């Protein structure tokens, strides 16, 4: 595989993976307004699940990597199961932070969960080989396809793109559906939505499970390609980078989020190229983080709606937009009356 192929395919797979994860977080935060600082756990759960289900049963030989359970399932299954496992974790998180927890406590509890999960995986080595993490995960279908390494990498990029496209279609349909409108209504005005009969708990469960599932699939896609996953890949700061991508790109807008991921990834992948080469390596790493941080703060200050803002979902209220007779009449016969929120509940 040529260096260019290697560089391009790795970057593209990372891009697809990050976009999937950011879309997942955008469902939770952008669409519903869930403050989840434990988001990276879903990606991690997906990655570990896929790795363990691809590696086969652990050998228990001296010096071999240790992990819990293990199987060698055929190709699409590890990725699918990874999504499901992450989805279940999403359900658990939704139930923990549910029940009207104060918004900043929600952020704190999820932050604590993320730190504690990292601590646990690091400390209990038989779980996923602790700090060292899992490695040598075989690439799916590499034996059956019999392609050169470069061609295989491009096939994998196409596969990742396909997964992204399918996820986009599903996500887009959800966001445009009555249920999606109901979820957005809960975000804008929880008590108003509740008064119209929207079940906020159900909305939270839907976004949490779907968002987590997307993140789980993203983690699985990544680990099946690069073959390794360790605690270094999922510190709480990684969640923050995804939040930054969403804020930069545009909260609640899928295309905006894609652009935001592109921008943050350019900083990480290419940012070092524009720094003087005389800098010590740890300074380069620090500077990349600092650039993302400063960029996020700058966007919060100058353009909190992001590069591509969320679409306004307006209900036409008469031609002049007034609330007079004609306006009221138009609202009654208008195409999307506000009562469609109630239909959102009926749908679910």
């Amino acid at each position: 595989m040529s260096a260019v192929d290697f560089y391009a395919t790795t970057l593209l797979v990372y891009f697809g993976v990050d976009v999937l994860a950011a879309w997942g977080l955008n469902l939770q935060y952008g669409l519903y307004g869930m403050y989840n600082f434990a988001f990276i756990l879903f990606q991690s759960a997906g990655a570990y699940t896929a790795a363990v289900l691809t590696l086969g049963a652990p050998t228990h030989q001296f010096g071999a990597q240790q992990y819990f359970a293990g199987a060698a399932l055929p190709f699409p299954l590890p990725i699918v199961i990874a999504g499901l496992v992450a989805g279940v974790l999403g359900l658990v998180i939704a139930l923990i932070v549910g029940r009207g927890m104060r918004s900043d406590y929600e952020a704190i509890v999820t932050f604590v969960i993320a730190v504690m999960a990292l601590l646990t995986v690091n400390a209990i080595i038989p779980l996923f080989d602790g700090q060292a993490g899992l490695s040598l995960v075989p690439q799916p279908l590499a034996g059956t396809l019999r392609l050169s390494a470069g061609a295989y990498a491009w096939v994998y990029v196409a596969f990742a793109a396909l997964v992204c496209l399918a996820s986009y279609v599903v996500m887009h349909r959800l966001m445009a559906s009555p249920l999606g409108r109901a979820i957005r209504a809960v975000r804008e005005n929880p008590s108003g939505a509740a008064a119209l009969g929207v079940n906020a708990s159900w909305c939270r469960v839907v976004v949490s499970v779907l968002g987590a599932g997307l993140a789980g699939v993203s983690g699985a896609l990544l680990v099946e390609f690069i073959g390794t996953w360790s605690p270094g890949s999922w510190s709480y700061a990684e969640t923050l980078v995804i939040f930054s991508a969403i804020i930069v790109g545009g909260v609640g807008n899928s295309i905006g989020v894609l652009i935001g991921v592109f921008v943050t990834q350019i900083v990480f992948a290419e940012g070092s190229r524009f720094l003087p080469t005389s800098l010590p390596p740890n300074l380069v790493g620090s500077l990349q983080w600092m650039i993302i941080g400063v960029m996020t703060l700058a966007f919060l200050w100058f353009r909190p709606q992001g590069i591509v803002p969320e679409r306004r979902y307006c209900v036409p209220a008469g031609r002049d937009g007034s609330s007079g007779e004609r306006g009221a009449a138009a609202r009654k016969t208008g195409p999307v009356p506000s009562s469609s929120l109630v239909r959102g509940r009926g749908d679910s």
Partner: protein
Amino acid sequence: MLIVPAIGFGLATAAYVALAAVGFTLQAGVSNIFNFAYGDIMITAAFVAYAVNAAGGTLWELLIVGAVTGAVVSLAMNRLIFRRFVRHGVNRFGMLIVTLWSGILLQNLLLAVFGPKFFTLQVSSGRLFTFFGTRGILLTSVQLISIGIAMAAVLIVAAGLRFTRVGMAMRALATNPDLAQTSGVPARRILDYTWIVSGIFCGLGGVVLALATGAFEQTTGEDFLVIIFAATVLGGVGRPVGAAVASLVLGVAMEVSALYIPPNLKELAAFALLVVVLIVRPGGLFSLAKEGAEVAVV
């Protein structure tokens, strides 16, 4: 029995948890901003103390340097970053993102200056004191000093909030910032005081934490933040005595649980307590500010 010595370790742990948590709870209670950069300010103080220590500073000098660093960094962050973003209209969740990123900026600044390795403060831990017999509680003089400072900190903050005019103004701002300002509370100055006082305890806590953990690195403060959160939420946001009691419970729970589970998992005890309490009472145990109190815009 190992329980009694474990309780002794718990007391020592509770001391630095309480010291840090008192500063955190005061600032979080008064300004209604959860400062995720708090742990990073702590560790910044520890790094400055490390530099002073390398130049031959003694324990007391390190503590003073830590307190001053904490106060200065804390005030600077509020003036230069946090207050401006609040005035700019960034909401509560946005402020969490702002404080988190500020903390990471600080961490990476330290990483760039000091480099990626572990650091140790070279301070003799002093005489060993035993209580309740030779199988009882063992504490070094450094640990006793930390316990003393922590108790003094709790009493000063609690009494200050209760009895002084500045303390009353702080409580007023916590409860209803708009009403407090229309009643003539100089909100900007009072909030500055809050960040300074909180910064002093933050810096002291950082130095004591660095002494207690032995080896520290840039992310040590951020990891420790989890326990501060637990102490703050369990004790009630804005309640120094509550934070102290919660720190005691957490400290003893962590050290005693270390007898039964792997010691590097002892923080899980703190975590379990926090999550269970928040599931049972999603609004926390008690709070200085009422539910949904606003962030003071000054």
